[in-house]
């Protein structure tokens, strides 16, 4: 543990903890909409932003936020139209995003391949003080939106048509959610990399919902699991010199496996204990069979 006495390790730890907290808080809305993989696509688009930043010697984080926000708004507009051709449009956007990013990064003089890898797969150990400030501010924005607007975002993700009839500002909320997704991608970029961003949004949520009954409980447990996976993962990476981003994601997947096995064992035990007296109001029988 003495490694965490170093400044760079403390910054790495803080950075991944912010990611572990913010990514599932946003990811739960994407999972609820059955759009779990959208975060991955936005991550692809963000790479073009990184490339633009490196090429123009601006902060890659700022350009990534702007470009991925534009990408996320485009995705939302495609989703809103609900066209069958939306699939192809998304493919064009996502692969255009990642190849544009690789292309621009290669153009940026003096930037080596190692730099590209840092954005694709994360590089928490090189997190600077400035990076950390940006991550904390953006992470705070993500948490503020996802926690304070939870009832409204839940309503539009749960039943968008009903929310529209109820007079909620559905379009504005959808666009806000899209932009917040882009911000989350940028926050997580440093910690786990653009290719693994979606994992931190989705895996803790998938693990939490194995053992929860409600939305709020799932959200809170997913955030706890995200933070725990980040802390354990960065510790393993430091002790055994493994790739930090990948280690964090593998720890989260391990948590999913443990909870899935535990839930299965618990259900079996409950069934053995007797299904009788369990679930209150059952469906009334439609016919009575006489022997």
């Amino acid at each position: 543990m003495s490694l965490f006495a170093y400044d760079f390790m403390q910054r790495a730890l803080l950075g991944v903890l912010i990611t572990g907290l913010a990514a599932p808080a946003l990811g739960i809305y994407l999972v609820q909409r059955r759009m779990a993989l959208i975060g991955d696509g936005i991550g692809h688009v963000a790479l073009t932003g990184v490339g633009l930043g490196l090429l123009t010697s601006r902060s890659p984080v700022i350009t990534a936020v702007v470009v991925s926000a534009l990408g996320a708004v485009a995705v939302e507009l495609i989703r809103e139209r609900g066209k069958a051709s939306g699939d192809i449009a998304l493919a064009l956007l996502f692969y255009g995003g990642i190849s544009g990013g690789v292309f621009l990064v290669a153009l940026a003089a003096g930037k080596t391949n190692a730099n590209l890898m840092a954005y694709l797969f994360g590089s928490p150990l090189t997190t600077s003080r400035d990076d950390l400030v940006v991550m904390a501010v953006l992470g705070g924005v993500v948490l503020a939106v996802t926690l304070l607007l939870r009832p409204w975002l839940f309503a539009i993700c749960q039943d968008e048509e009903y929310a529209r009839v109820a007079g909620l500002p559905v379009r504005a909320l959808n666009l806000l959610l899209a932009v917040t997704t882009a911000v989350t991608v940028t926050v997580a970029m440093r910690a786990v990399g653009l290719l693994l961003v979606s994992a931190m949004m989705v895996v803790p949520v998938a693990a939490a919902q194995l053992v929860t009954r409600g939305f709020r409980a799932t959200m809170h447990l997913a955030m706890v699991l995200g933070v725990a996976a980040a802390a354990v993962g960065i510790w393993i990476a430091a002790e055994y010199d493994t790739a930090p981003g990948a280690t964090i994601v593998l720890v989260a997947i391990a948590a999913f496996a443990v909870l899935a096995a535990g839930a299965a064992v618990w259900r079996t035990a409950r069934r053995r204990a007797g299904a009788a007296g369990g679930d209150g109001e059952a469906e009334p029988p439609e016919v009575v069979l006489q022997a």
Partner: protein
Amino acid sequence: MSTVVELRDGVVAYGDRPVLRGVDLTVHAGEVVAILGANGSGKSTLIRAILGLVPLVSGTLSLFGVSRRGRELRGQWRRIGYVPQRLGAGSGVPATVAEVVSTGRLARRGMLRPAGAADRAAIASALAAVGLADRATAPVGTLSGGQQQRTLIARALAAEPELLVLDEPTAGVDARSQSAFADALRAFVAGGSTVLLVAHELGPLQPLVTRAVVLHDGAIAHDGPVPVPAGHHADPHHDHVHPHAPHDPPGIWTGP
């Protein structure tokens, strides 16, 4: 008697296919109006047009006496409780009955305002009205179809609406849920509120309905007392199978 819904010469089309061909419908406060008709007759489209979910190609719509098109009606939609046919598809994450019902309250609650005592009371009484008070913390995904339907009715009631709009509320619902639902509706109507419902068959709701509107091929074929079932329809054991409406072109590719 004040007018709650007034649709004049309403025309709705999906692509080039007309679904409503100049429909006039007026609903007054305190009425319980059932919209009847075969599959494809346009009955669901009619209530979707009233709810603003599909645009009118022509005609005028006024709700609660406010007769402007588009955005200005939004304030009036808040006074409407909508009960769709089934729970929305977007439920990849578990949600409790109380969580779903509480979304009905958001129409009355300002943005970013925390839930108050009035909100909690409205949610509790909506759950009690449909007989689901003891299931508030159950995940909706584990409920029967009838209980899920009652959850959606509780969600609409939580908004304390003046008009309740229901799309096939009794379709595929078990007998126990049907009667719980009829009780909830009876209490709602007793408070002087208005109901507009689409139904295939009325079942236990029949005594509540004050007026029936029968749609046929996108036009109103009957507007008045509930038609008495005739022929084999009057047989309580009749097998309820309906052919699709005539002139129902193969519109599956141009549908909504």
